[in-house]
């Protein structure tokens, strides 16, 4: 007896996450941020359920603001956790990959003018530490913009930049 197995290549759904926004999806999906400068893309992944969440963080602290949770490092991480757990992810399985936090603008002599990228990196690292989520991959700081493509099939994050080799973390 011959069994025919049809192999279907599944198209990955692509969700673009804008500045200050977030998204949670499961499997066969790709969460994307285009043009990260001093902002940080925080990707959380549960490799058992293949649920992934991505927040596009703009600033370190919310100063008690109730809306736009994904915009600030201190509120984005707990918020994303909650949304992922609602969808069925388990907190103990979550691991983080973080990308961005560059210093984009330079004055004469090559000095970086805004320190916001650096502050964002510190804030994101601190909140992940407090939430006991391990950072398993990162591509941070320096002076150039990045785009990130977070594949929920395997949790890999591809990072692209101008005049740089693509890297996968």
């Amino acid at each position, binding site marked *: 007896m011959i069994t025919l197995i049809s192999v279907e290549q599944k198209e990955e759904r692509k969700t673009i996450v804008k500045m*200050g926004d977030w998204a949670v999806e499961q499997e066969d999906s790709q969460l994307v941020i285009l043009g990260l400068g001093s902002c940080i893309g925080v990707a959380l992944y549960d490799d058992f359920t293949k649920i992934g969440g991505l927040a596009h963080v703009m600033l370190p602290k919310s100063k008690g603001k109730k809306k736009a949770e994904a915009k600030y490092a201190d509120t984005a991480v707990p918020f994303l956790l909650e949304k992922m757990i609602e969808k069925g992810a388990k907190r103990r399985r979550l691991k983080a990959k973080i990308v961005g936090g560059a210093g984009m603008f330079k004055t004469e002599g090559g000095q970086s*003018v805004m320190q916001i990228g650096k502050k964002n990196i510190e804030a994101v690292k601190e909140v992940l530490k407090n939430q006991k989520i391990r950072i398993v991959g990162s591509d941070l700081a320096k002076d150039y913009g990045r785009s990130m493509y977070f594949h929920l099939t395997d949790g890999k994050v591809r990072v692209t930049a101008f005049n740089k080799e693509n890297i996968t973390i």
Partner: protein
Amino acid sequence: MNLDKEKKDILKEIANIGAGNAATAFSTMVDQKIDITVPRIELMPIEDLPEITGDQEDYISCTLINFEGEISGKILLVLEMQVVEKVLHLLFREGELPEDEIQNSALRELGNILSGAYLKAINIFSNLNLSQGLPAVAYDMAGAVLSSSVIDFNQSDDEIILLETEFIISDEKLELYYFFIPEEESIDIFFQHLMGDNLD
């Protein structure tokens, strides 16, 4: 934030005067006729800024200048990469372009001169005292550059006011985007100065 027609007209007038003055300075530098478009005033969520020039992954150059004084905010001069090279050729007149750092320096200086002319016109029009900071430059993806340019604004609102003018170097059809972005509290000071008691 609330912008009625009267306020929009005032901002348009400011952008027009500022850009007109900047265009004259620019024209003298490159010895070409410079046209300016009618200024566009937009109240937009800060999240939309990375897309204003088109694709977030377009390669652009952006010169950023902070200004402060009685009002504060930012000025951005944005050029697509293919325009940068042509503008540099105009600035250096002839021959091959000098090394990168001198090119960067020329772009900073261009931003400096255009912003100086723009702010001076505003100063004369509104009587507000303004000083400009050191220009800084970035070349990269539009999204990365533009998002990072205004991120340190400490606004209670999540909207920004953008005054956009395009400079067109007539013979070359080169477009340069020029953005004037006042901080939120500066807007009220603007209107108080310009409308006096009529402010509602």
